[in-house]
């Protein structure tokens, strides 16, 4: 279908983009368009104006900043996968991004767009949450940092205020000894996750010293599997890990849709968490 009419601007700077958004509350940011254009084509969204930030140089690129990796919001999925800084500094993000959609969508879609869109079925919000990422928002007042744990507020809703643009995300590097895995369950190629599990695990002496687990599509926002994380502390690979992962769905409220009922999603979360944790611990 053909989208309804809207105006279009391509501002030359982040400041200009923020001013455009502040001046019109029905204006929307356009990044890669891989979520927004399908919505416009189905006439599920009616913005008055699209503010195209896709080409702003200050919003793109991957930067090694010592203790963290800074990724500009307009860095495409394809650029994330190809970035040596990402594969070395935050490999979990590269692993999960490689499962997003298909090559053509990954050439256009951006990390910032995925996070700002905040679809709980999206793969990258759970990863940024698991890695304790910090989102950087720009506005006419300047920059503001929002921890991932506070950024995802509700279904398709973030802590970004009107007039704010997501500028980038800081991902703290985890030191040596950590292993990573993203386990995504979907029935057909190129489909969204029915459930996904992002796991970062530090191993010491044959046991798990520390684990961080992000859950995709187990609620209105991405979630941390907090109960499983604390049960995994000190768990020995084998039965103890297995038991700890049985708590992966505690505190979640998975949706019902045509792909799965909540109880099935809970089952998947437990099984996929076990697989992800064992794979991240290097013992699949």
């Amino acid at each position, binding site marked *: 279908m*053909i989208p*309804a009419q809207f105006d279009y601007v391509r501002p030359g700077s982040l400041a200009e983009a923020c001013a455009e958004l502040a001046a019109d509350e029905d204006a929307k940011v356009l990044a890669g*368009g891989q979520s927004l254009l399908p919505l416009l084509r189905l006439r599920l969204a009616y913005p008055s104006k*699209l503010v195209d930030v896709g080409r702003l140089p200050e919003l793109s690129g991957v930067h090694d900043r010592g203790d963290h990796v800074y990724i500009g919001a307009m860095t495409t999925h*394809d650029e994330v996968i190809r970035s040596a800084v990402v594969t070395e500094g935050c490999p979990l993000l590269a692993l999960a991004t490689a499962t997003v959609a*298909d*090559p*053509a969508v990954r*050439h*256009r879609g951006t990390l910032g767009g995925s996070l700002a869109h905040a679809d709980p079925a999206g793969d990258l919000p759970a990863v940024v949450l698991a890695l304790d990422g910090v989102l950087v928002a720009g506005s006419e007042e300047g920059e503001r940092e929002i921890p991932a744990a506070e950024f995802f507020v509700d279904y398709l809703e973030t802590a970004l205020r009107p007039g704010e643009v997501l500028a980038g995300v800081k991902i703290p590097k985890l030191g040596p000894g950590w292993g990573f895995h993203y386990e995504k369950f979907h029935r057909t190629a190129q489909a969204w996750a029915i459930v996904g599990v992002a796991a970062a695990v530090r191993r010491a002496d044959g046991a798990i010293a520390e684990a961080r687990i992000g859950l995709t599509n187990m609620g209105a926002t991405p979630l941390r599997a907090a109960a499983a994380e604390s049960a995994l502390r000190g768990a020995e690979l084998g039965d103890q890990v297995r038991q700890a992962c049985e708590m992966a769905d505690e505190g979640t409220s998975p949706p019902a849709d045509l792909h799965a009922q909540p109880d099935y999603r809970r089952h998947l979360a437990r099984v996929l968490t076990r697989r992800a944790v064992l794979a991240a611990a290097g013992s699949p």
Partner: protein
Amino acid sequence: MPRITVTVDGITYEEDVEPRLLLVHLLRDRLGKTGTPVGCDTSNCGACTVMLDGRSVKSCSVLAVQADGCDVVTIEGLGAGGSMHPMQRAFHEEHALQCGYCTPGMVMAAIDLLRDDPDPSEEAIRHGLEGNLCRCTGYCNIVRAVRRGAQEMGQAVKTS
């Protein structure tokens, strides 16, 4: 109305476009490039795949204004001097199509895949073409055609 400059299959056009005009509609309805079809309303099928600055994109999911200043190659721009591109010829020879609706997108996606992996395995091809759906062939002949096209393209590079 924004004015854009876009090069399509080697020819540069200046067009006044409504912001809501999709790249695929610019190609088909304005420029007559009907070799690129629209197969779905959900950005899933990949029939509309073209190259935008050398990378595969779904042209139904790009606004024409977003292609301002860019270089677009469609299925119609692949062959030179009336002869088929080796990947097109491989699809023809391996019977990699029935109705042909998915074919332009499949060929573009296959050529994009070879940028990274000039001699892809069967598995790499199936994975690389994930964004392109075929409702007729069952994919086997498509995979065979991409392997053959890849070999012929490698050959073409080596002998030239």
